[in-house]
C-alpha cells in the first residue's frame, strides 16, 4: 500500500495521510466519512482535538464510536453502528447531504484531476475501459452536495490533468463551471496526500499546494503530479505526526488493515 518502508520513517504513508487529514477537521462538525483512511482520521480527530465531531456513514449510521480493532470492512456492516446515536435507511442518511446538514464529506480517491474531479469508474475510455473500477457508491452524491476532503496517495498516475471520467464532481472545468452545470453548492475543499495538503484557487479553481509534509520539496510534489501545480504564496511545512496521534491510529488498526 505504500512506497515508504517502515525502516525509512517512524510512520507509514497511510498513517501520515490519516494524521494530516484528521488535523483538517474542526470540533462540532458533521462529517460524512468513508471507511479506511477517512474513518481512521475522523476517529483520530474525535480522540484528539474534535471530541464533538459527528461521523455519518452512508450505510445509515449517525454518530458511531469505532471499537479499536473492529474497523468496519465497509460503511454498511453492523460494526458501523456500534454505540451510534441513530441508525436510518441509506436514502435518508444521504438525503442529509441534500438537505444541507453535513459540513464536510471525506473520502479516498483513485484518480483526481487539476480541478479536483474524482474518477472511480473507468480507467481509459468508458465504452472500452482498460479497467472498470467499482464506481461511485455515495461518492457522486457526497461531492455533489457538500464540501469535500479527499485523502489519497500522491502518485503521478493518480494526479492527472483531466480524469478519464468524472464520477464525483470537483470544480468541473474550473472557474464557475461547477455552478453553471447545476451544482451551486459544495465543492472540493482539500486534498491530503502523503506529500502535501492542497486546496484550490478561489478564482480558477486549479489545485494549489498549501502545505508540504516534512522533508518534502516542491519539486517532489510536482514530479509526482501529472499537471502543473499552483503553490500558495505562503506554503507551510506541516508538523509531522506526533507520537500520541500515531498511538491512537495503531490502537484503532492494530492489524494494519488500512495503515500498512
Amino acid at each position: 500500500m505504500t512506497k515508504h518502508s517502515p525502516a525509512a520513517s517512524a510512520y507509514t504513508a497511510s498513517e501520515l495521510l490519516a494524521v494530516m487529514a484528521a488535523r483538517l477537521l474542526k470540533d462540532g462538525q458533521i462529517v460524512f466519512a468513508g471507511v479506511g483512511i477517512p474513518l481512521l482520521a475522523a476517529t483520530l480527530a474525535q480522540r484528539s482535538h474534535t471530541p464533538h465531531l459527528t461521523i455519518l456513514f452512508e450505510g445509515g449510521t449517525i454518530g458511531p464510536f469505532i471499537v479499536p480493532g473492529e474497523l468496519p470492512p465497509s460503511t454498511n456492516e453492523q460494526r458501523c453502528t456500534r454505540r451510534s446515536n441513530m441508525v436510518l435507511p441509506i436514502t435518508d442518511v444521504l438525503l442529509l447531504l441534500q438537505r444541507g446538514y453535513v459540513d464536510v464529506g471525506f473520502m479516498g480517491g483513485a484518480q483526481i484531476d487539476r480541478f479536483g474531479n474524482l474518477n472511480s469508474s473507468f480507467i481509459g475510455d468508458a465504452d472500452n475501459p482498460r479497467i472498470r473500477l467499482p464506481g461511485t457508491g455515495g461518492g457522486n452524491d457526497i461531492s455533489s452536495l457538500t464540501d469535500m476532503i479527499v485523502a489519497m496517495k500522491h502518485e503521478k498516475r493518480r494526479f492527472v490533468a483531466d480524469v478519464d471520467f468524472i464520477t464525483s464532481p470537483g470544480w468541473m472545468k474550473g472557474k464557475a463551471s461547477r455552478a453553471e452545470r447545476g451544482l451551486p453548492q459544495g465543492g472540493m475543499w482539500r486534498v491530503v496526500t502523503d506529500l502535501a495538503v492542497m486546496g484550490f484557487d478561489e478564482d480558477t479553481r486549479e489545485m494549489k499546494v498549501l502545505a508540504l509534509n516534512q522533508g518534502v520539496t516542491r519539486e517532489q510534489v510536482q514530479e509526482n503530479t501529472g499537471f502543473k501545480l499552483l503553490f500558495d504564496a505562503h506554503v507551510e511545512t506541516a508538523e509531522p505526526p506526533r507520537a500520541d496521534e500515531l498511538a491512537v491510529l495503531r490502537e484503532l488498526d492494530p492489524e494494519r488493515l488500512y495503515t500498512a
Partner: protein
Amino acid sequence: MSVDTEVKPYQQLRRETMERDRGLREKVMSLEEAAKLVRDGDHVGIGGCTMSRTPTAMIWALIRARRKDLVVSRSITSSEGDLLFASGVSKHIITSWFTQGIVWGVSKVMRHHTEKKLARFEEWSHMSMGLRYRAGAMGIPFMPSRSMIGSDVGKRVGDSLKTMTCPFTGEEVVLLPALNPDVALIHVQRCDAYGNAQLDGLQFMDIDMAMAANKVILTTERIVSNDQIRRTPDQTRIPFFTVDAVVEAPMGCAPHECYGLYEPFFGHLDEYAEITAKDPVKGPQQYLEEYYYGPKSWPDYLAKLGMDAVLDACRRGRSVHND
C-alpha cells in the same frame, strides 16, 4: 432505453398490484418453490447492501434453478454480483458500486465481464438508486433530486436522467425515474407466516424496495407467530400484503452478515477473493460448483462453510449488542 428506465405507466402499476393476492394468507414455502416465482428476464431487486443482509439463500436457489437474463438492481453489489454474472443468471446489474469489498481490491470477475462486454454494470449514484426505489414505492413516476447532474455518471445514463425547471423556485432540478422491480428478494431477522417482517439495525433500501416491487420474496432467520408481531407493531417494517413468499432460511446471508446475529465469514471471503483473483473465469466456476451446484440443501451449503466458521460469525455478530 433499457428495460430499467422504462417507467411503468401508473394504470399498469395499479392493475398489476390489484391483480396480486394481497389478502391475509399464509405463504410459507421452500427456497425451491420461491425460486419458481422468479421468471427469466425479470427485474430482480436485491435487498441489503454490500455484505449486509444479502439474501444469499434466495440468490443461491435462483442460480441452482438456472434462471436466465435477470436484470438485477441493488444499492451496492458485492460478491453475489460476481456469481450472478459468472453463473449466467444475469448479464445486467444496476447498482452504485460493484466489487466484493474495499479490503479485497477491485473484483476481477466484475472486471472480466464488463471489460469483455459479456455483461453490463449500469452505474447510478447511491442516493439515486434509493430515490428511484422510493419513487416506485410511492406510486409516482419520478423523484426530484440534486446529484448526478454535471458528472459523467449522469451523462452516461443519458435519457434516463432528466432535468426540469422548478415551477415554484425557477431552479433546475434532476428527475430520477421510478424503479419498480418485478421481484424483490429481502432477508429479515424475523417475520410471520403472512409476511409481516421486522428488521433490526440497518435498513438500507429494503423498505422502499419492498413497497416498489410487484412481488416480494422474504427469506427469514426464523418465522414467528403473528401474535408476536402484534406485540411490537412499531417494529414491523414490511407489511404482509406486499409479500408473496416467506422462506425460513437460517444463516440465510452467509457468507455475508445479518445484523445482530452474525458477521461476515471473513476467512471464507478471503478464499473467495483469492480464487476469483487468480482466474476470473475458472475461479468463480469452481466456487459455484463447490458451494452452489454441489450441496444437496441449504444446511449442506452451511456445512461446507464449516461449523467453526458459523460459530465464529455468530459470536462476532452477537457482539454488537455487547457494551
